């Protein structure tokens, strides 16, 4: 049952940082190949940059095959309402180099659409489905975009910035009136919220 | 006491006595398990409260005619079995029916359950019934084989005579002492017959949501509980009569019941449940050859 368990050596962070540098260099080189620029080392084991929507797939494919980014950590989506754009952030992790690449992609907010990467990373299907459900971004090539979490939801995609959850809740759900009169509470004369609220506070 | 007025009193009172014993046994079993699990556990007569609660439910959700009748078959079949099993002071019916009859009427209750559950049309229930029938092929074969051994040895199939034969020389003539192979094999079978772990594949809450009980509520579940409690007593008594020399007085009877049940519950508390196929494999690998060896031993000694 005991596999290859490695003991932690104390100077490992420095070594990992060194590895990250080399991986980061590779990422920057690939980015240059894929005609995207601006990839830079953001911190220890973090590389970040912007990619065009059109070249994301080829860039991701190169990341996977040439540098060995085997693990898709997550796909995040940010709604920049003022700019009229969605920002998709792909987080890739390399088990070999211990390095995380965050690729930022901006797409238009109206009829938002993006190429899928499920052919490269299978777990992407959940993240894409989730973003489709919460933001309304369509992923071309992903066959499994039906509703998952919000099957009973009829409203707009709720994570968009123009949807205000507080207003929706106030419109759709009833709240109890709870306005206790503190005098009654102290003297023990409190008999339920509605009866008290009528006479005291209003 | 096996004739006249006493007999009538017995026939009327016996179901209640059985139920009362079953309540005590069931409560004791739950308390015992709780103590192994480092808990306080429920009241000693918790099953009684449960049954009262279930029988006082207001709604009856019936799934059809068969669903109602099956509950009668369930309890009726078990009561019928109960009458044929001799206990101290009451063995009137055992002169009319030997173990073969007991085996036969014992199947009425599972059949009733199967019919009733079939009508509820819940897949969990159907799987539970399928599993119950599958398990029959495991423990029933073993148990019948051990019984055949006992019958061959004593030359009778009457449970009362078997019991008397074992009572002849005190503990030394108990079948579990004279034929330990048969006794132990039957003990395995008893564990499955009582549907306790590791052979508790029929109810299996995490797998099939309590199987046959899935659609049962209120009085239906109450009937199943009553049947279960009486069945506890009946099954333990059958084993006791076959291998522990039965009992001549109620004191001995109750002591033996509780000791035997403690054994069953101890195993129940520290084991998980088998998969259905491995339970069957287990039965055919260990207890069945054991029982067969025991029977062969008896045949050789008989020659």
């Amino acid at each position: 049952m005991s596999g290859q368990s490695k003991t932690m050596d104390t100077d490992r962070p420095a070594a990992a940082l060194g590895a990250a540098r080399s991986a980061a260099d590779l990422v920057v080189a690939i980015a240059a190949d894929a005609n995207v620029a601006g990839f830079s080392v953001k911190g220890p084991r973090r590389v970040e940059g912007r990619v065009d929507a059109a070249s994301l797939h080829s860039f991701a494919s190169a990341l996977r095959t040439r540098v060995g980014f085997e693990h898709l950590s997550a796909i995040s989506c940010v709604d920049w309402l003022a700019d009229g754009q969605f920002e998709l952030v792909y987080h890739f992790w390399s088990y070999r180099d211990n390095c995380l690449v965050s690729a930022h992609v901006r797409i238009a907010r109206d009829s938002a659409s993006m190429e899928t990467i499920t052919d490269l990373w299978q777990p992407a299907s959940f993240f894409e489905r989730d973003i489709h459900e919460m933001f309304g971004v369509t992923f071309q090539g992903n066959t499994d975009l039906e509703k998952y979490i919000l099957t009973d939801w009829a409203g707009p995609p709720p994570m968009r910035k123009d949807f205000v959850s507080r207003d929706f809740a106030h419109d759709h759900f009833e709240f109890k009136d709870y306005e206790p009169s503190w005098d009654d509470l102290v003297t023990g004369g409190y008999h339920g919220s509605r009866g008290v609220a009528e006479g005291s506070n209003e | 006491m096996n004739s006249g007025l006493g007999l009538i009193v017995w026939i009327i009172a016996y179901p209640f006595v059985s139920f009362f014993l079953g309540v005590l046994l069931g409560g004791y079993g739950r308390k015992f398990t709780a103590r192994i699990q480092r808990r306080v556990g429920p009241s000693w007569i918790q099953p009684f409260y449960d049954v009262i609660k279930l029988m006082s439910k207001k709604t009856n959700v019936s799934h059809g005619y068969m669903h109602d009748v099956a509950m009668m078959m369930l309890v009726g079949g078990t009561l019928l079995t109960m009458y044929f099993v001799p206990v101290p002071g009451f063995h009137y019916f055992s002169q009319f029916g030997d173990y073969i009859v007991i085996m036969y009427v014992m199947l009425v209750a599972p059949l009733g359950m199967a019919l009733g559950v079939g009508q509820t049309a819940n897949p969990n229930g159907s799987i539970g019934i399928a599993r119950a029938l599958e398990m029959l092929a495991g423990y029933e074969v073993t148990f019948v084989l051990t019984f055949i051994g006992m019958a061959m040895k004593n030359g009778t199939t009457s449970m009362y005579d078997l019991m008397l034969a074992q009572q002849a020389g005190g503990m030394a003539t108990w079948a579990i002492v004279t034929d330990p192979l048969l006794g132990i094999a039957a003990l395995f079978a008893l564990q499955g017959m009582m549907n306790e772990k590791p052979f508790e594949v029929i109810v299996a809450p995490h797998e099939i949501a309590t199987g046959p009980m899935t659609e049962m509520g209120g009085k239906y579940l109450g009937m199943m509980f009553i049947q279960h409690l009486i069945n506890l007593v009946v099954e333990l008594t059958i084993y006791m009569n076959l291998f522990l020399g039965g009992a001549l007085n109620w004191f001995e009877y109750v002591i033996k019941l509780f000791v035997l049940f403690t054994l069953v519950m101890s195993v129940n508390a520290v084991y998980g449940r088998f998969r259905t196929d491995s339970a069957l494999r287990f039965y055919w690998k260990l207890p069945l050859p054991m029982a067969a060896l025991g029977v062969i031993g008896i045949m050789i000694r008989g020659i």
Partner: protein
Amino acid sequence: MADTELTQRGAWNKVIANLKKRSLWMLHYCTGCGAVELPPTMTSRFDMERFGIMPMVTPRQADILLITGYLSVKTLKRVILIYEQMVAPKYVVGFGSCTINGGMYWNSYSTIKSLDQYLPVELFLAGCMPRPEAIVTGFNALIDRIDRGEANSWEDYYKNYDFYHKNQLHAFGEIETHHDIKSDGRYFGIAEAQR
């Protein structure tokens, strides 16, 4: 409220209520995060079984429907189906602040705010989340109510089904229920008792 046959208390009913209160089975359904405090309550340390309270698997077998915390609209739909499958008398226990007034999810678009709009609630346990001691205290309060014959909230569902049904429709639209609540209510003789 008209005293129905069910709520009249004779000596026999008192005895039965006294026995009934010792056996309560709750539905083993984790509707929300409060369910994480149920395993400690069931297991050795707090040992709910001393009061005869046991988790049960299917709605048909259960007496208590414990709503363990917030209810998303999607779960509410299932909970109502489950509640209607349960066998009366049945008790709904709202567990945690979120069943009372939304709790910290007061502005969530996905959870309902007030459980008693949709189901008749017997008892609320406040707290986020209630500790096992609070759960035990709550169950003891329920046991006392059953003993006194006051735990009749389930009748309210039959009496005021229009109210509950209207709110249910508002929350998630039409659902296919398998029980005719109105005729059940007539069977109990309490359907037209009110209004």
